[in-house]
C-alpha cells in the first residue's frame, strides 16, 4: 500500500465516520429558501446581518441544551416530559437562593444541580423499578413538580445578580457566551454518546434492551443515568433562561413548551422515538431549524397564529421524511 492510497482511504473513512445527519440538508434547504424569501419579501437581513445570524443561535440555546438531554433519553427508548417543569424549578430555585447576591451563585448552582439529579433519578427509578411507561412516569413527575412549584412559588421569586447575567447576555468578542455553552453541551453530549462506555451501552439499551441485558449490561442503571443527564441539561437550560430573565417564575418552562419541543426537535434530528438510533448533532440541526423559522417568520412578519400552524406542519413533515420508507407500522 502506498502512502497516498492510505491517506485517501483515511479521508474516505473520515467522511464515512462523521456521517452528516440528513437533518442538515433539510436545514440548509430551509435556510436558503428562507433567505431567498427574506431577500424578496423583506430586507434580506438574514444573510447580510451578522447579528441576526448569531441571534438564530441564541434563540436556539435554551431549547438546544435541553434537547441534547432529551436525545439521551430518546436513544434509550424512553422519553422525558418533565423537563419543562425541571427548567421552571431550576429557574425559580436559583433566583430564590441567589437573591441578587453574587456570593450565593455557587450555592444556588450546586443546589439546583442536585435537585435536577434527584428529579432524573426519580424518573429513572419509576420507569425501571416500577415498570411504569416512561410517557406516563415523566408526565406524572411533571404534574407533581408543577403542583409543588405553583403552590410554593406563585410568582417571580428573588433575582439573579448582575454578574450572573453574563451567562445570558455576555459576549466573547462578537459571539455570545451562550453559543459557546450550547456548542460545549453538544460536544460533551457527542463525546459521551460516541466515545464513552456509557454512551455505547445507552445505544445498546435503547436498541434492544434484551440484547443489552444478555450482553451483561446493567440496563436499569444505564437508563437511570440517561434520565439524570436529561434532567441536568434541563437544569442548565433553566440556569441560562434565568440569567436572561433576571428572575425565575414557575411558568417559564411550560410557556416555552420545552417538553414537547425538545422531543420534536430531537426526532426531527433523526433520533428515533423507538430508541437505539440518533445523536446530538442531528438534534442540534433540528433545534436550528426551529431557530431559523422563528427568525424567518419575524423577518417576514408572518401572522403569529399562522406560525404555530406552520410549526405543526414542519414537525410532521420532517418526521415523515424519515419514516415514510420504513416498513414497520407506526402507532
Amino acid at each position, binding site marked *: 500500500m502506498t502512502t497516498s492510497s492510505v491517506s485517501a482511504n483515511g479521508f474516505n473513512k473520515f467522511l464515512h465516520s462523521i456521517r452528516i445527519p440528513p437533518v442538515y440538508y433539510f436545514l440548509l434547504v430551509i435556510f436558503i429558501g428562507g433567505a431567498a424569501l427574506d431577500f424578496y419579501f423583506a430586507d434580506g437581513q438574514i444573510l447580510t446581518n451578522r447579528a441576526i445570524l448569531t441571534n438564530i443561535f441564541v434563540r436556539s440555546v435554551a431549547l438546544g441544551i435541553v434537547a441534547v438531554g432529551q436525545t439521551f433519553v430518546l436513544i434509550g427508548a424512553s422519553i422525558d416530559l418533565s423537563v419543562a417543569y425541571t427548567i421552571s424549578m431550576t429557574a425559580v430555585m436559583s433566583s430564590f437562593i441567589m437573591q441578587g447576591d453574587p456570593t450565593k451563585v455557587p450555592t444556588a448552582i450546586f443546589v439546583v444541580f442536585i435537585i435536577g439529579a434527584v428529579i432524573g433519578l426519580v424518573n429513572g427509578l419509576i420507569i425501571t423499578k416500577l415498570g411504569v411507561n416512561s410517557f406516563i412516569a415523566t408526565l406524572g413527575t411533571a404534574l407533581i413538580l408543577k403542583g409543588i412549584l405553583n403552590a410554593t412559588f406563585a410568582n417571580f421569586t428573588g433575582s439573579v445578580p448582575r454578574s450572573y447575567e453574563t451567562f445570558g447576555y455576555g459576549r466573547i468578542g462578537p459571539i455570545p457566551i451562550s453559543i459557546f455553552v450550547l456548542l460545549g453541551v453538544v460536544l460533551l453530549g457527542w463525546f459521551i454518546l460516541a466515545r*464513552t*462506555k456509557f454512551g*455505547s*451501552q445507552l445505544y*445498546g439499551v435503547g436498541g*434492544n434492551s434484551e440484547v443489552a*441485558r444478555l*450482553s451483561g*449490561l446493567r440496563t436499569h442503571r444505564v437508563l437511570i443515568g440517561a434520565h439524570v443527564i436529561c434532567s441536568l441539561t434541563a437544569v442548565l437550560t433553566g440556569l441560562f433562561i434565568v440569567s436572561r430573565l433576571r428572575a425565575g417564575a414557575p411558568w417559564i418552562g411550560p410557556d416555552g413548551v420545552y417538553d414537547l419541543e425538545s422531543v420534536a426537535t430531537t426526532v426531527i434530528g433523526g433520533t428515533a422515538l423507538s430508541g437505539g438510533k440518533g445523536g446530538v448533532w442531528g438534534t442540534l440541526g433540528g433545534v436550528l431549524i426551529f431557530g431559523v423559522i422563528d427568525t424567518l417568520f419575524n423577518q417576514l412578519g408572518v401572522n403569529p397564529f399562522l406560525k404555530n400552524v406552520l410549526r405543526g406542519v414542519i414537525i410532521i413533515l420532517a418526521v415523515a421524511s424519515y419514516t415514510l420508507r420504513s416498513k414497520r407500522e407506526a402507532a
Partner: protein
Amino acid sequence: MTEEQNKTTVLRKTQPEPLLEVRNITKRFPGVLALDDVSLKFMQGEVHAVVGENGAGKSTLMKIMAGAYIADSGEILLQGKKVSFSHPQEAHEQGVSIIYQEFNLLPERTVAQNIYLGREPSKFGVIDIRALNKKALTVLKELGADEMISPTALCNTLSVAEQQIVEIAKAISFDSKVLIMDEPTAALTLVEVRILNALVSRLKTRGMALIFISHRLVEVFDIADKITVLKDGQLVGTELAKDVNAEKIVHMMVGRILDHYFPPLGKKEDFGEVVLRVNNCSNHFLKNINLELRKGEVLGIAGLQGSGRTELAQALFGVMPFKTGTMEINGKTRTVKAPSTAIKYSMGFMTEDRKAEGLLPKQPIRDNMLLTVRSMQSILGNIFNDGIRKSRKMVPTLAKQVDVRTDNYDREVQFLSGGNQQKVALSKWLASNADIFIFDEPTRGIDVEAKASIHDLIRGLTKKGIAVLMISSELPEIIGMSDRILVMWDGSIAGELPAKSTESDVMLLATGHETNNHSNKNDEAGKE
C-alpha cells in the same frame, strides 16, 4: 498432579473434575415444566453436543448456564466451585459465554461495537476506538472472516450469515473457558460451516469446553465428542459420539419409532384439482417460483434458514407480495397484495413465530380464535344483529376441533402453554374456513405430545379436502408429513422430491447440490 507440563492429557486420563457441571436443575414456566431435574458435566477440551426435539429444554438449559435465566432449583458448579449467575454478565466474568439462537445484534451499531458491547476497551469510561476496532479485527481474523467483515461496518448492512459470524466472534471474544452455541450453523452455508468446524477444533485444543446445540445430526457427529439427549425437559442420556449412530440418537430424541409418530400420508386418489398455482413469480428475494398445490395434499417446503422458505409463504400470503408472475387460486388468476386479500381467497397462514406474528397475547382465547372471522366481516358489523352471538358460539366448537382443553375462553393466551397457544393460533384459520393452509414451522417449540396432535390435525384437514403447504426446518417432520417435498435454496426452488425421500436427498438440494436423479424422481413421482 505435580507434572504440570502435560496437564490436559493427565486430566483426561484420570477422570478429571468437570469444567462446568449442572446438578438437578429444574425450571418451570407458566404451563410448562421446561427442565426437570437435569444434571450434566462438561469437560475441558471437549465438544459436547446437546440434542433434542424442539421444546426439549435445550435452550432453557443453556440460558440457565449463561445466567440469562435463573433455575427454580438445582446448582451450577464451575471448576468444582458452586456459582450462581443472577445476570449474564456474571457468567461472562467467570468465563461462560453463549451464542443465542435468535440474533442478538444491534442493527444500528458497528460490528466492533456489537462484539464488545459493554466491554469496550476504555480508560476512565472513555472508549479507545482504535483499540476497539483492532481487537474486533483480531477476533474476526481468528475466525478467518477479517476479509469479509469490517469492524466498522454497521450490522444492518451485513447478510444473515455475516451476522451469525459476528455473533460467534462476540462469543469467543470473551476469552471464555466455556462456550455455549445454540444452533450456530443454522444459517450458514457449507463453506461457512467448515470454517466454524475448524474454529471449534482450534478452540477445543486451547482447552475450552464447547457446548453445542444442533438439529443437524450430521454436523453433530462431525465435531462432537459427546452427545447428550434431552426430551421433554428430562435427561435421556449422554453417549460418546464414537459409540453411537444417528438412528440411536434419533430414537433417544423422539422416544419412539418414526412410523408411529406421523399420521399416514395421503393416498393419490385423495388428491383433487390444483387449488393454488404459481407461475414464474419473483420478488426482491424470490426467483422464478413455480409450484402447484392440490386439494387434500401436504406439500412440504424444506430448505436451510435463509433459503427463502418463510419468504415464499409471505409472498403467497401477500405480506411481501410477488412483483412479477401470476398466481391462480381455485382456477382464477388473482393478485394478492395484502393478507386480507389472501384471506378473502380462503387462504390461511400459520406463522413461524407464534408470539410475534400469530397471537394477541393479552387478548382472551375467544378473541384470538375469532380474529380472522372478524376481520372478514364488516367493521361495524355485529352491533345490531346476532352475528356476534353466532361467532361466540363457534368458540367451543373450535376449541374441540383443535383440542384446546379449557372451559375458560376468557383466559389470556399469554398464560397458556406453547402447545395450546399454537392450537389457538391454528383455530382462527379453521374459523375462517380457509381451504389453502400455509404452515410455517407448525410445531416449533411445543412438546412432543402437542406436536403429534398438531400433525394429526394437519392430516385431518387434508382429509377434508384442504390443501396444505407446510414449511419446516425439521427434516423428519418434512419427510414424515409431506406428500411431495419442494426444496428451496437461495431464493428459488432447487427441486422437488417425492414422499418418503431420505434426509440426505433433501440436504443435498438444500445445500445447493444438483442431484443427478432428481428429474428422474420427479418423473417417477408423476408415474405413480
